[in-house]
Structures are given as structure tokens and as C-alpha cells.
């Protein structure tokens, strides 16, 4: 009985101490109270406290950092194993311990919102939802100074050019994930059929804008016509995404966070309505023409069959996609057919904040968070562990030194699948994946360095004053985009209707607000 009583007393004492501690961190307003709280806490803790908080980092306990990321695949059952392997590296190096939390990708944003609003501790995380919304709602911390002190290497890894892309009023709230940014629109066609009809893709060339694409488009049309005439059972041009042939993506533009108000090309500073542009209109008419000529599948706007499944079933001839090097190898992997691919457009980076990693407001120790974040962006071993798991358990090295699943295991049966490779903080320092072309990471890195960045890169639109209009316009776009971008609805009738509705929904208010913010941003950053 007395033992139980002692236990309760101990627990009570511990709780009281915790209360004093929170008291000291909570009452930053009055200095006296804070000092008193600190003192009493230290008195109670005695010598131990000063040791644990000691400045000589060697002896202190490693700080634990909860790292939350999105998992785009089956449950990662071996998370603990990977975590332990990471800690073996992190504890001696930066005296931090990592705790991995994988949240199902489809539920990630909801879960984050819920946890952040209830104050659940998360130390480093993939930003939920959009970067600017997260900032507007104060979900993530300003990490500018921390980055200066503990994150120089991570900054270098992202690249100065791209760091611009996450600056908001001179402050950084998150690091963009590092991946290949030099992707361009490409046209890929079945090699066997090209040969059969004596067609060649040599005439295609990379062009900077829509007007100069006309030669490419004429050539494409001739090829598609030939295939349509001779192979009636084949879909000449398969839509890469449901309801989206992606042809309009060869129009160079920067979407400024959403497609509601964009700048055309890389040098412009004028916010315009993309859907009302001459280029988009021409593109819609061309697509409609191709649809009516039978180049595009009839129920393209609603089909539930993916482009890969159509192509691998031998039912398609060609496809348009936005891709990096090695797209032909990818297509071969996915469809088992040989493809010949040509690049159509030039790389233009207008936005890098699509996926960012940041420190949530509920972080316990932002310094430790930053240290771990820095490792996540610069440490190849950590990155490989995060991407592929533990060597010889979750992956094996191939002869070319790439990561592959061990014999007899695939993404669905693995206890730590590799499907998150594209969503990790720095894809380019991890091992390369089996099936990629030689020097994959190196080439991507070089492409990143040479890619053009738009003049507006770094401008992040704060849509908080036009949320109503944004919601309304998003709903309108949802209604028409698939139809127009696949040629499956009549342009004469629907495009004007679409534009009218967009105007009613307030797109011009958004554009005005965007232009105002962009001008302000340009003035603040001395950009002409």
C-alpha cells in the first residue's frame, strides 16, 4: 500500500514540475515570473538539469525529432528498422534522434491539419496543402535564421537560384524538395509503328513558345493522320492524364500558385487570364480538330483507363508528357513497348514550392528540427535509407550500383517499398533506382543548373483575400478543363461560356490582386 502511495506522490511531483516548466515557457510576457519559474525548476531538478541542458553537446541526451512524411504506397511496416539505422548515423553526427512518422499520402493534408490544430508535436514535416496557405494559416515556422546557422549545406543543395522560389517577404518557411526540374514536354511514339510506316521524328525540334511550335505540330499531325488511316483499331494520341492530352502544356507559362492568373513566358511580369489567351484558344481548336479526326479516344474525358494501361495493351500509338531524361526507358518499363521520344519545349522553372519540407509550429525544438532537416537534404546515407530502406533487407545493389528490390519482392510485398522516391527531400543524393539511365542523378543535377527560371520565381501568391473567388473559379475550371484539354467538347460554344463563367466567379479580382502583389514583390526585390 505504501509503495503505491509513493508512486502516486512521485507522479504528482513530476506533474507539478512539468506545470512549472510549461509555466516558464508560456509566460514570456513577464520577465520576473519567468525567472522565478526557471529558478524553481532548476532547484528541483538540481544538478541533473544543468547537465542535460549543458552547452557541451557531447554529453547531453540526443534531442528527438519527429519527422513526418507522406507515404504513397502500402504501409511501411519496417519503419522502426530504418529509423534505427538512421539514428546510428545521426546521434554521433548531430546528437539528434529521428522518429519517423509515415502518413498515408491520400490522407496526409487532413491528418496534418487535424494534428496541428490540436497541437500535436511534429518537428519536421512535408508541408500540408499549399506552401502559401500553410504560411497564411501560421502552420509552419519562419526558418530563415535557423537556415542561416544550421542549414547552409541544405541551402546549397537546393541551389541559390531555386531558394528564391520559397522566399516570402525575404523569409524562408520551407525547403523545396530537390528533384529534376529540367523537365520539358516530350512526344513519344511507338518505334515499331514508326518503322512500319517509314515515319521519323527527326524533324522535331525544341521550341521556346507556342507560335514557333507550328512546324512541330504540323509534323505531329501528319504522323497521327498516317497512323489513324492505317491502324483503325489504334488510338493515335493517348491522353497522358484523364481528360488531358497535355498539348497545352507546350505553351510556356508560370502559373503563380494556381492557374487563376498566370504570366506567359519566362520574362513577363503581366498577370493575365491564361484561359482567355490566344494560345490557349488555338490549342483548344487544334485539339478539337484532332479529336474529330479520330486521333484522340472518344471517351477521353471520362475514361478510367490510364495511359500506361492503354499503351501496354497495345491499343495506343503515341503520348505527350512532361518529362526528364530517360522517359523512353520509363515507357518501356511501363508498357513493354519501345518508344522513340523527342523534346518539344524548353525547360522553364516557375514554381518550386509545390512540395516543401518545413518546421511546423508545434515543433518542440526548432534548432534540432533544422539540424535534422539539413541532414535530410545533404546526407546520402540518410536519403537512401529514407527512399529505399536498409540495404540487403529492403533493397539490393545491382551491378550498375543502383537500388533494386531483393529477389522475389516487389513494391506490394516489400516491408519498405521504394515508391516514395520522388517525394523525399533530396532525390538526387540517394541511390539511383533500378531501370534509370546511366548517370541519372548527375544529369538531372546538371539540367537543374542550366534550366531557365522565370522572372517571377520566388513570388508566392497569398490568396487569403480572394479565397471566395478562388473557390468559385476552381469549381468552374473543374467543369471545363477536361473537355477543352482533350478536344471532346465543342470549342465555339464552350470556351466563351467558360470564360464568361470565370469572369462571373471573379477571376479578374484574383488577377488584379495577383498583379498588385507581384508588383509589390518586384519592387521589394528590385526586379524590373
Amino acid at each position, binding site marked *: 500500500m505504501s509503495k503505491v502511495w509513493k508512486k502516486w506522490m512521485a507522479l504528482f511531483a513530476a506533474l507539478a514540475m512539468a506545470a512549472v516548466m510549461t509555466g516558464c515557457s508560456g509566460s514570456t510576457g513577464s520577465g520576473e515570473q519567468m525567472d522565478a519559474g526557471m529558478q524553481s525548476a532548476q532547484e528541483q531538478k538540481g544538478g541533473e538539469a544543468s547537465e542535460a541542458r549543458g552547452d557541451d553537446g557531447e554529453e547531453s541526451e540526443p534531442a528527438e525529432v519527429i519527422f513526418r512524411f507522406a507515404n504513397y504506397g502500402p504501409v511501411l511496416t519496417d519503419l522502426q528498422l530504418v529509423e534505427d539505422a538512421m539514428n546510428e548515423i545521426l546521434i554521433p553526427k548531430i546528437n539528434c534522434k529521428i522518429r519517423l512518422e509515415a502518413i498515408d499520402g491520400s490522407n496526409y493534408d487532413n491528418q496534418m491539419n487535424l494534428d496541428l490544430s490540436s497541437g500535436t508535436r511534429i518537428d519536421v514535416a512535408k508541408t500540408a496543402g499549399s506552401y502559401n496557405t500553410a504560411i497564411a494559416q501560421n502552420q509552419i515556422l519562419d526558418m530563415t535564421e535557423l537556415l542561416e546557422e544550421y542549414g547552409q549545406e541544405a541551402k546549397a543543395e537546393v541551389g541559390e537560384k531555386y531558394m528564391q522560389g520559397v522566399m516570402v517577404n525575404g523569409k524562408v518557411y520551407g525547403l523545396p524538395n530537390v528533384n529534376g526540374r529540367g523537365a520539358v514536354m516530350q512526344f513519344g511514339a511507338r518505334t515499331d509503328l514508326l518503322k512500319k510506316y517509314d515515319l521519323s521524328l527527326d524533324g522535331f525540334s525544341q521550341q521556346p513558345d507556342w507560335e514557333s511550335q507550328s512546324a512541330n505540330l504540323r509534323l505531329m499531325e501528319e504522323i497521327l493522320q498516317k497512323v489513324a488511316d492505317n491502324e483503325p483499331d489504334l488510338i493515335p494520341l493517348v491522353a497522358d492524364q484523364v481528360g488531358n492530352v497535355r498539348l497545352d502544356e507546350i505553351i510556356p507559362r508560370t502559373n503563380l500558385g494556381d492557374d487563376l492568373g498566370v504570366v506567359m513566358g519566362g520574362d513577363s511580369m503581366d498577370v493575365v487570364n491564361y484561359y482567355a489567351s490566344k494560345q490557349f484558344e488555338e490549342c483548344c481548336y487544334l485539339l478539337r480538330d484532332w479529336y474529330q479526326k479520330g486521333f484522340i479516344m472518344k471517351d477521353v474525358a471520362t475514361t478510367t483507363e490510364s495511359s500506361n494501361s492503354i499503351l501496354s495493351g497495345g491499343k495506343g500509338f503515341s503520348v505527350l508528357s512532361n518529362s526528364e531524361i530517360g522517359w523512353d526507358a520509363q515507357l518501356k518499363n511501363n508498357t513493354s513497348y519501345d518508344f522513340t521520344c523527342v523534346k518539344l519545349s524548353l525547360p522553364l522553372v516557375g514554381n518550386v514550392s509545390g512540395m516543401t519540407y518545413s518546421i511546423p509550429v508545434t515543433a518542440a525544438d526548432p534548432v534540432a528540427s533544422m539540424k535534422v532537416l539539413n541532414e535530410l537534404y545533404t546526407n546520402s546515407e540518410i536519403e537512401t535509407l529514407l527512399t529505399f530502406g536498409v540495404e540487403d533487407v529492403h533493397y539490393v545493389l545491382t551491378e550498375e550500383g543502383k537500388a533494386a528490390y531483393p529477389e522475389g519482392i516487389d513494391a506490394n510485398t516489400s516491408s519498405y517499398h521504394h515508391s516514395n522516391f520522388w517525394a523525399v527531400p533530396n532525390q538526387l543524393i540517394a541511390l539511383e533506382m533500378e531501370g534509370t539511365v546511366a548517370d541519372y542523378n548527375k544529369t538531372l543535377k546538371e539540367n537543374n543548373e542550366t534550366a531557365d527560371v522565370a522572372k517571377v520565381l520566388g513570388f508566392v501568391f497569398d490568396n487569403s483575400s480572394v479565397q471566395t473567388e478562388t473557390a468559385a473559379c476552381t469549381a468552374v475550371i*473543374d467543369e471545363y478543363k477536361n473537355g477543352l484539354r482533350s478536344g471532346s*467538347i465543342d470549342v465555339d460554344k464552350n470556351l466563351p461560356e467558360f470564360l464568361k463563367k470565370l469572369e462571373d466567379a471573379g477571376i479578374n479580382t484574383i488577377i488584379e490582386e495577383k498583379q498588385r502583389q507581384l508588383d509589390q514583390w518586384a519592387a521589394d526585390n528590385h526586379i524590373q
Partner: protein
Amino acid sequence: MPKTSHKGRRLKWKRMRPLYIMMIPGTLYLIINNYFPMFGIFIAFKKIDYSKGIFASQWTGFDNFRFLFATKDAFVITRNTILYNLVFIVLGTIAGVTVAILLNEVISSVWKKLYQTILLLPQLISMVIVAYIGYAFLNVENGFLNNSVLPLLGLEPVSWYSEPRYWPFILTITHLWKGLGYGSVVYFSAILGIDRELYEAASIDGAKRGQQIRLITLPLLKTTIIIMVLMSVGNIFRSDFGLFYQLPLNSGALYSTTNTIDTYVFRALMQLNNTAMSSAAGVFQSVVGFIVIVIVNGIVRRVDEDSALY
């Protein structure tokens, strides 16, 4: 005198106790699932700031509600939601009552069970799968209708997923097919509760089947029908998201006849990730539902006091 009444009350309590105990799980469910969350209504009037927490966030009045009425679509989605619900309530009730009466007339218990099971089966199928069944029927190139049925009737194939005018029928038929089994169960059990002697007496007096149904079954079902209708009327501003989103395969060309408040809210806020605005939509639907139910109940009470909910 007072003593006996006291005793009577205790006796009554003793008799009722099992019923009250049986009520506990349901009541708990209602409190946890339906009453606790009501507390969150205030979120709809806030501009959420995660660093301050939801309580300390700034009040914004009705700002979060504006997006619901910001476009001309506001009319379309409200019209669609209400009209579909009215059609569903009217046809659903008629079909449910008819099927319940017909089931009651089936004498063989084997057949009765079989019919009930078959009718109930669609209720158990997920809307996603229903959407694929629909797709199998309506696919432009390979669908059952375009390939087998329409040529048989000598009609041209129809591009179902881009012709809005067919969708009121498609959606209604699917809704009835899916909900009929469940909808008729309540009426069927109400019919089983009717005193058999009434029918016996009627048939001795020479009443035919049809007369029995018209003069005994239907009048006695009236209260059940009214309660069921009142309960569905409260949801008149809500729609079955699965039905209106999955079945049309989210085809933009069909929005004029398939967009409802729920699908609109989903589409508008998918990317914005704005909790307050989606709460606003929910509050709006609930408040209107509440008002409608009070009005309809008031009308019912005026016409026939015994049938009103309260």
C-alpha cells in the same frame, strides 16, 4: 390515492427499465456523433490561424459563406440538390410502399425472403463499384447500352457522359435501384404490425384485395410514411456525394444536371484546404435543413396533429 399513483409509477418504471437500458447505446452514439461535433459550428465563422488555435482565431462573420453564393452556379447547385431530393423522396416513398405491400402479398416465405434479399443487395454495394457498373452500361464505345440495347431498338449511340439531359433519369433510376430494398423494409415491418383481424373482418365483409389495401393498409401506414418523409426532408440540402460524384465520373460536361451542393463544395475546396469554408457549407446545409423540417412539421401538425413528429 397518492400512494397508489406512486406505486403505479414505480411499476411503470420497472416495466420500462429494459427499454431505457436498450436506449443507452443509441443515445451515447447520438451524443458523441451528433451533439459533440455541433460545438464546432463556430469554426465556420472564424479565419483559422493554427498558431493561435481555433479558439483565439479571428472572427470573420459570414465571410466563409460567401463562396457558396459567389457564382451563378449557386442557383444550379441549389436547384439540383432540392429537385433531386424532392424526386427521390416522392418516388422513393411511392416505390418503397408499393414494394412493401407487394412483398406482403407474397405467400410463399421462400420467395418472400428471396425477393427481399435481391432488393436489399444493391444497398450493400459501394458507390465506386456502382459507378463502374454504370460505366459498363454507358461507356461510349464498349458500353452495354450503346453496343447492345440501342442498336436493337434502331437508335443512334449516345455519348452518355457528355449529354447532361439524360442524367436526371440515370441518377434517379440508380438511386431508386440502390435504395429500394432498404426503403421498403420499414414499411414492410409496419405492415406486419397491422392487426390481422382487421383483414379477416374485411374479407368476411367481402372486401377485395385492392379494397383492403386502400382502406386498411394505406391509412394505417400513414403515420410511418409521414415520419419517414419528415426525416428525409431534413436532409433536403444534402446529397448523396457518392451518387453525384462517382456515378457521372466527375465529367465536367454534366455539371449542369449533376452538380449539387456537396460536390460543388468538394470541388471548390479540394485545393484550398480551407477548414472554415467547408464548415460553413456544412452549417448552411444543417440550418436550412432544420428550418425546412420545422416548417413541414408545422404543416403536418396543423393538418393532422397525431402524425407530427413533435
